[in-house]
């Protein structure tokens, strides 16, 4: 509706205005289930020139205005005998975590915190002090279920038929306020894609298997209205589901925001600055997502032969994801032996006419963050056929047999 009004009116009269007084922005979530904490200290955008901080941890687009030289401390107010005492967070810990202006790291294991403890933050920045508190939430167990099957998280991988099933998650025995669920692809094929994310004011949540990912589309670009929403779950893929329980401060932070017409609405629980000092605990389990077989091209395939001198024999469990007039997207589980040894990944591809193209990625054993990607493409039909294998520069490197049992 606001867009309609804006369409009636017109934008005019751009003028420069004086810079505003910057406000310190602190955003930090303490995690008792993780060994190391960090606090992000920035300042509001006030018309000052952007700083090329070389930040590697602060996410988001430029400009970023990190606050450097602040003194950041966290104290457990509920534990007088806390061996950590007042924990000092530093910008340059020098023992592993990525260093970046505006990011302050705690020592490993500090501050100590348990369910119900109250932590107290103090950020002494050059422009003033910011303080806040959080009460550590407690959770007896996180439970993840599909249909009648459930696990205490982290637990074994569950199988979800996205066309039939609903995922449920629960924080049992929880003290806190906000239940957050995150869904992302954990394997090398989908790790870079943004994941689904949602928060409810409850200790339990359900997510239908066929739910469109309405929310991630909006988070990627808040300035335009997305026209397409991908599914949260697509068949033929692995997903990691993280369930987290946050405290009251986190709930206020995540449920509110300053809206554009008024500049008001965010519930700020910090003193002297803006942002959040909250706490949360979380657990993660995996899902193997399948779907109903309702397309003739869906089903099991066998990809075998010799690839660059290495015998390979992989089973494909292929599902059609989305279809339009030109192409049909598909995903498949790939398991068996592949170029660099055993493989258990998902792969994405597309049908164009009767031809299938799949990009199969495999983590290189023993080499950190290295992935080998090969394109397998060729006609798909009943019986046995030959498909080409291409390297990332689309040079044909070999061919394999694709068989549909």
């Amino acid at each position: 509706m606001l867009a309609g009004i804006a369409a009636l009116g017109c934008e005019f009269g751009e003028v420069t205005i004086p810079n505003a007084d910057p406000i310190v922005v602190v955003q930090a979530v303490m995690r008792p289930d993780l060994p190391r904490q960090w606090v992000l200290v920035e300042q509001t955008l006030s018309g000052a020139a952007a700083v090329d901080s070389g930040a590697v941890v602060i996410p988001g687009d430029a400009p970023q205005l990190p606050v450097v030289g602040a003194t950041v401390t966290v104290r457990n107010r509920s534990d007088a005998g806390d061996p950590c005492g007042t924990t000092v967070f530093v910008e340059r810990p020098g023992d592993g975590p990525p260093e970046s202006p505006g990011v302050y790291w705690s020592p490993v294991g500090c501050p100590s915190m348990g369910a119900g403890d109250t932590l107290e933050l103090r950020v002494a920045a050059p422009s003033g002090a910011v303080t806040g508190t959080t009460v550590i939430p407690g959770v007896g167990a996180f439970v993840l279920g599909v249909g009648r099957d459930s696990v205490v998280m982290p637990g074994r991988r569950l199988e979800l038929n996205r066309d039939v099933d609903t995922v449920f998650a629960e924080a049992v025995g929880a003290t806190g306020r906000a239940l957050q669920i995150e869904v992302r692809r954990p394997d090398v094929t989908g790790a870079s894609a943004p994941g689904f994310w949602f928060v409810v004011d409850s200790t339990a949540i359900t997510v239908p298997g066929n739910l469109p990912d309405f929310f991630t589309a909006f988070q990627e670009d808040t300035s335009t209205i997305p026209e397409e929403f991908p599914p949260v779950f697509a068949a033929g893929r692995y997903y990691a589901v993280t369930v987290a329980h946050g405290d009251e401060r986190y709930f206020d932070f995540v449920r509110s925001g300053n809206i554009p017409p008024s500049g008001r609405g965010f519930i700020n629980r910090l003193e002297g600055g803006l942002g959040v000092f909250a706490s949360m605990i979380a657990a993660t389990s995996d899902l193997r997502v399948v779907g109903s077989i309702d397309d003739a091209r869906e089903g099991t395939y066998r990809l075998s032969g010799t690839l660059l001198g290495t015998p390979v024999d992989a089973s494909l469990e292929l599902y059609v994801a989305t279809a339009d007039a030109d192409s049909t997207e598909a995903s498949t589980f790939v398991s068996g032996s592949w170029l660099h040894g055993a493989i258990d990944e998902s792969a994405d591809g597309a049908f164009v006419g009767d031809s299938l193209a799949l990009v199969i990625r495999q983590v290189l054993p023993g080499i950190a963050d290295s992935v080998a990607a090969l394109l397998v493409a060729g006609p798909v039909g009943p019986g046995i056929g030959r498909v080409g294998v291409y390297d990332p520069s689309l040079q044909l490197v070999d061919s394999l047999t694709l068989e549909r049992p």
Partner: protein
Amino acid sequence: MGRRRTIILLLSFATTMPAIAVAQGRRDVTGTVRAERDSTPLEGVIVIERGTGTTVVTDAAGRFLIGDVSRLPTLITFTRIGVAPDSVLLAGDRDELTVYLRLAPISLPAITAEARPTARIRFEREAQPSIVSVDRETIARVPAPFESDVIRTVQLLPGTVALNDYTVGFNVRGGEPDQNLTQLDGTTIFNPSHLGGLFSTFDTDAVEEVDFITGAFPAEYGGRLSSVLDVSVRPGRRDRLGVRGHVSLLASRLLLEGPAGSRASWLVSARRTYADVLAGALTSEVFPYHFWDAVGKGSLRLGTGGTLSVTGYAGRDVLDWLWQAAKPGQEEIRLEGTWGNQVLGVRFDQPLGRRDRLTVDGGITGFSARFGLQPRIVEAENIARLLSARARLILVPHRAHEVRVGAGIEDYRMRYDAGSESFGSSFLRMRYAPQVWSAFAEDQWRAASWLFLRPGVRVEAVRGPDVVNIAPRLGVKAFLDRGLALTGSVGRYHQAIHSLRDQNLPWNIFDFWIGADSAIPVGRADHVVVGVEWWFGAAESLTLEAYRKTFTDIIDANLNEDPAVQGDEIVPVSGDAWGIDVLVRRHWGRVTGWIAYSLTKATRRNDRGEYPAVHDRRHTINVVVQAPGPFGSDLAARLGYGSPLPYTAFVGEWDHRTYRAATHSWDNFNREPIASDDLNSTRYPYYGRFDVSLRWEIQKWGGMLRPYVQVANMLNRRNVFLYFYDYTTAPATRSAISQLPLLPSVGLEFAF
């Protein structure tokens, strides 16, 4: 002897005459004169009561009132240049009549008559200040975007401030929009707007008249702190079937009316926008919004001399947007919204004896809104419902007293639900159910020939907060001569329901009503009004009023409220307002219209201090002129000026990030503006607007066609709607979004 007997008989007859006259009684006769052809009201018709020679003239709505008429059958004559003269014998048991006159070029002998518009008669007979009536013809001619609009016209009267062109909400004498009681034939309407406030719900063709009371309203009115907007639906024709219609660029509407037997009449009217239909027919685009409304009225004259009328209204705004078509394994995604009012009111009106009268109203009114992102992703619903009943008895025990007593009950239910079936989660659940029992008594006392006093009191018992509020009221009018009077009123007012809105938002799709309970207070306001009303011509009047208002326990939305807690959704606010309203008006003639000026200062206080109200506009001027125009047209123009309104400036932006528990990292963010803590400490530029309309009247096919052209914001002034700030650049910048640009439109009215 015979002579003595004759004298005795004559004396006996003479002494019994007053008794006979008293037994026959006196009455006020009201009526409407319309054109037989198309039912349009006829202005300037001379109405003569032949018995006494009392002569009045109909106003722009065709109405007249003859006071103190005998209960004997009375001959009433109607004459005007251009109509065939006619006479009606009014039965002794009738107080109201509608006359249809045939248009005819007939010459009349010269008649000297004193023109007395209804407003003048009200001036002479009522103590109520701060009331302005606007009839249908005036509303229809005031230029407005696309088509005439009842509330757009009201926004041009003194004492009102409209925040911008995009809302029919308005602030009266420093009050909030939710403090205006809007009624349709006596039944409350919760949200009288379409398209998020761009248009009001009232169908101009069906409206008889609008009474707008901007302050110190009488004891019979309760439930709001600032104003009463009483919209009456006209009864249908009693002589034949009538058809009226209106086609504009926005919508089309059709009205049918006619008699039902000899005692009853009916009227139905419906309207629908068609941008969605046209977009679908002419382009490949989809326009997913439309609204419709319909109003109807049935009137039955009872054998007892009373009337029974039923008024109904229904309207819906519909948003239905197919966001994404269904795909294999994925249902379609659809954004749905529907909201609107439903009103059903019944009124029984019965004269009792000489001048006494009983009126009983019953009504049910509801507003419902439902929004959903389907399939089952998010759904929200709001329902507000009011059941009301009230009775009012007007007693005239003596010519110097008109006593009004009455009682009523208002039973409110409001509920809000939001949640997601998909996520198995409820986000919001709120319930409010105040119930208001009220009683009032008021006496309009003509203490002297030059002095009216109107003492009154209203008592309201509110279940929910469980309080009993007493609201004394007093009105005074002192005539310095026949056309000049000093007026004064004081009163206390209470309001048991509130609209939950962030006052800093320039625009609301509709009001979110909540009711008083143990945590939400009943709002209170005290009014003091002094003024002068001067009739300086047969049709010209000047009203000047100064006022002071205080507000206690009015509310603002608590932006920090917890959705799981009911009772924390408001923060208490108090306030003050004072000002001066001036209205110079020409009521009838070739050139009619008004000049309205308002001086206002309105402040609010919360726990952080005092600040200007968002509608604290110091000066507002509206000039409305309706006159013969070029090319045989009727011209109407509106010139408006508003001094700068306050707003809260932005002092920066921040990156409100998203925390990812899986990776213990902050993800992409929403960049959000930050408003200053100093509320409403900055002001927009002044507001200016000039609207013009031309309309022609063509006799065709036995009916009347009235094409029109109108231009809103003819000077294309860029009035600021709101500012956008960009603090990501160095230096920071600010740009504006304008209100309505130059907006021409055409349309056609017809009547048969």
